[in-house]
């Protein structure tokens, strides 16, 4: 491991330092004696799996969380932050992963709300336009947020942070919601900020990004600092090992997978949004055969949730023939009836959508298992059968939990996701529709889930995977289509689906070509 001092030969006064920083929640140590130094003119990566303590650490630095022990130093002096506004007044800015924007307000109004001063709206608007132009982050101050893409929304957050002229900027997984091309644009801005002498703390778990962009990387695991290194001198493999603490199992595609008959067919699905500012689905058509995995890529908020609702039957469509499962037109059939036909669904949100958080796992097995199978007889619950599902899922998918039948909310994200995916796969569905199968899941659990999806397809099921993680789709899908503004592109075979092509489609390019394809098919 290279000596961190080598990366900065001259002793530079650190801008921000944490010394033995500790945060304890009850018996749980979220951060355990963490030492970090961040110097000006540096992009410092904070790497770690979910639950490694990255968020707690940056929230402490931003004044949102009070440390239980240790010290924060700003330009060498110990500080105590009572809240984010104090952090901002020192020159610490932060761009969160989840935006805090009001959909019905304009860009300028949103920015003005986030600023501490009493600047009039017109002045804010003008300054905003200046900063945005200056950094090449085009933004129209007068547009309302709901009209903007996710990338543009992130720009608002970044510009809002930059308008306070921070010396130190924290970015929490900024590329998670961007297309590869948008990410490249962001990197140019970050490089520029670095050249201006600012420091950046960059949270990510995308290793190639970190290798490309960052000067220093601090790796956290289980609340502790594992190492500080120069990521450019490391390989993706060695970084991953430090993050996970062991080798990650490779997902192995099954040798021979034969596609059979079409099991899920969608014909010209058009659906008005159920919610204000929702996405309208337009003329979506695809065909998915048994033994096949179709990936749907796209930036979040382009209609993936609406498509899931229509496919699962949470929302019904008038024309039954729009959605055909195993030869049966079922656009107007309920989710329970679709489950009886052998379909299974895994939504993006584990807690609150896929499971009832405060209910036990056996009850959550019943939640999706009651329509088909032996869990309910004459209206009475067969408790033994629900527990059997819990036990089988636990065994097959290595779900770690404190007791046999705990509340769903008490499981870690990865373990709950294994349960949510596992409970559906154990029903041996004919069609599986899964949204973000490994979102916020540790690498080990992600590998198990991806393998299970591949195995399910090998067994003859049709699997539809929607994901924002291109690497994941390229790894497991046979064909990949892209959703943009409620439309679905034609599916590219895996061999042709390069990151560049997918990135262009995710940004809305070559839609014309796609529409032409539509026209010729019709």
């Amino acid at each position, binding site marked *: 491991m290279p000596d961190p001092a080598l990366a900065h030969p001259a002793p530079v006064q650190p801008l921000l330092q944490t010394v033995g920083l500790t945060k304890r929640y*009850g018996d749980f140590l979220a951060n355990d004696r963490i030492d970090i130094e961040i110097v000006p003119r540096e992009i410092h990566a904070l790497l770690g799996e979910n639950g490694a303590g990255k968020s707690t650490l940056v929230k402490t630095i931003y004044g949102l969380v*009070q440390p239980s022990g240790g010290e924060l130093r*700003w*330009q060498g*002096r*110990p*500080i*105590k*932050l*009572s809240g984010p506004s*104090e952090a901002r*007044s*020192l*020159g610490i800015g932060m761009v969160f992963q989840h935006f805090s924007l009001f959909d019905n307000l304009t860009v300028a109004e949103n920015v003005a709300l986030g600023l501490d001063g009493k600047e009039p709206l017109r002045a804010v608007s003008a300054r905003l336009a200046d900063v945005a132009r200056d950094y090449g982050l085009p933004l129209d101050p007068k547009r309302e947020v709901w009209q903007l893409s996710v990338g543009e929304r992130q720009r608002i957050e970044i510009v809002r942070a930059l308008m306070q002229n921070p010396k130190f900027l924290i970015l929490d997984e900024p590329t998670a919601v961007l297309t590869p091309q948008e990410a490249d644009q962001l990197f140019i801005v970050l490089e520029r900020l670095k050249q201006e002498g600012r420091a950046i703390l960059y949270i990510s778990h995308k290793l190639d990004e970190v290798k490309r962009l960052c000067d220093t990387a601090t790796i956290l695991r289980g609340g502790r600092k594992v190492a500080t290194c120069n990521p450019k001198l490391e390989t993706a493999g060695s970084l991953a090992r430090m993050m996970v603490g062991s080798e990650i199992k490779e997902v192995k595609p099954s040798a021979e997978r034969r596609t059979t008959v079409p099991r899920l067919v969608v014909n010209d699905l058009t659906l008005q949004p159920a919610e204000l500012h929702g996405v309208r689905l337009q003329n979506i058509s695809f065909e998915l055969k048994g033994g096949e995995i179709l990936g749907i890529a796209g930036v979040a908020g382009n209609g993936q949730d609406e498509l899931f609702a229509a496919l*699962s*039957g*949470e929302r019904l469509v008038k024309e039954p023939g729009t959605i055909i499962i195993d030869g049966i037109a079922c656009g107007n059939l*309920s*989710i*329970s009836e679709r*489950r009886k036909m052998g379909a299974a*669904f895994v*939504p993006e*949100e584990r807690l*609150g*959508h*896929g*499971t*009832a*958080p*405060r*209910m036990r796992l056996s*009850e*959550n097995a*019943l*939640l*999706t298992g*009651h*329509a088909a199978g032996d869990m*309910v007889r004459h*209206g*009475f*619950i067969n408790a033994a059968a629900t527990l059997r599902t819990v036990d089988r899922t636990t065994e097959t998918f290595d779900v770690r939990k404190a007791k046999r039948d*705990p*509340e769903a*909310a*008490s499981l870690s994200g990865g373990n709950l996701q294994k349960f949510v995916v596992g409970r559906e796969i154990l029903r041996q569905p004919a069609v599986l529709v899964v949204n973000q199968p490994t979102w916020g899941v540790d690498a080990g659990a992600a590998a198990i889930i991806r393998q299970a999806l591949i195995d399910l397809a090998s067994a003859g099921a049709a699997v539809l995977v929607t994901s924002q993680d291109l690497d994941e789709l390229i790894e497991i899908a046979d064909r990949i289509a892209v959703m943009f503004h409620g439309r679905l592109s034609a599916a590219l075979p895996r061999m042709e689906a390069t990151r560049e092509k997918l990135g262009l489609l995710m940004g809305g390019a070559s839609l014309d070509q796609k529409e032409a394809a539509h026209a010729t098919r019709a």
Partner: protein
Amino acid sequence: MQLVLEKRAERSRTIALVSPLIAIGLTLVTMSVLFALLGKNPITALGVYFIAPLTDGYSLQEIAVKATPLVMIAIGLSLCYLANAWNIGAEGQFLIGAVAGSWIAVKTQGTEAGHWVLPAMLLAGAAAGALYALIPALCRVKFGASEILTSLMLVYVADLLLDYLVRGPWRDPAGFNFPTTAEFDPVATVPLLIEGGRLHLGSIIALIVVICAFVLLDRTIKGFEIRVVGVAPRAARFGGFNANQLVLVTFAISGALAGLAGIIEVAGPIGHLQPGISPGYGFTAIIVAFLGRLNPVGILIAGLFLALTFIGGEQAQITMKIPLDVTKVFQGILLFYVLACDSLILYRFKLVFAARQVQSGAG
């Protein structure tokens, strides 16, 4: 130093059981202060309220009689509340049930009608209560009207309808112009369990209702549906459950139970229809439902406890000249404490010592 509420990782099952007891304890303390302010000895007053009624057989029977409607109504309300449907109008459904059942009693009065009369009255009471409860339920499902308001407002409609009937068309001709129907015939009366006592068949029906509700919630898919729609509506929809339909179902069950309680009350302890047949059972049952943790067994216990306050309140008025309204104050304070203590199930108190001093000068 400050006191903060910290979220617990899992619901505390201990607190879930202990919380009603803490609430009762706090209520007793508050009541003692209130009694002292009224110039009464708190110990004696609490003794009259809570101990004396338990010491003689007549009062014990009376407690069961008062608990009967409370428990039946509260069971229905608990199903609504679990499913996130807020029926506040059980009092009205109780009155309508009483009116509908009494209609059969009034029409068959003095005829040769046989033993079918009482079962028909009970059925009519339950059906009327259910239909009456469906009005606010439908308004919510179809038009998005707040069922809290509409169900509450329908209480007054029911109250005035009853008033009109007993002062007008159904008034007992031989009743010296009192606003009341004639005494119901024996075939239209709920039989007593003990000859010459007060305990009647309604208490048995209430017990059966408790058992049925327990089985429904704990063992059936419908009960699971009720529980999951309330705690996780989005997950419930994903599970294939229809929240709107459930509003109708739980309101209907709840209205039926309130209506049944109404007609049992009229055909049982009272024996005829008159204004003021309910000392606010439909509202007190809301307290019973929450004090009983929306759990059938808990509701049975809570119903008996609240019935005790009615009996104790009457005795305190007679022996200590404490106004009967104090009972209502007591019930209100109790509900307040129950809801407050419930937050301890999901949260815990924690003392935080944090230096909030800022030592930085940079800016």
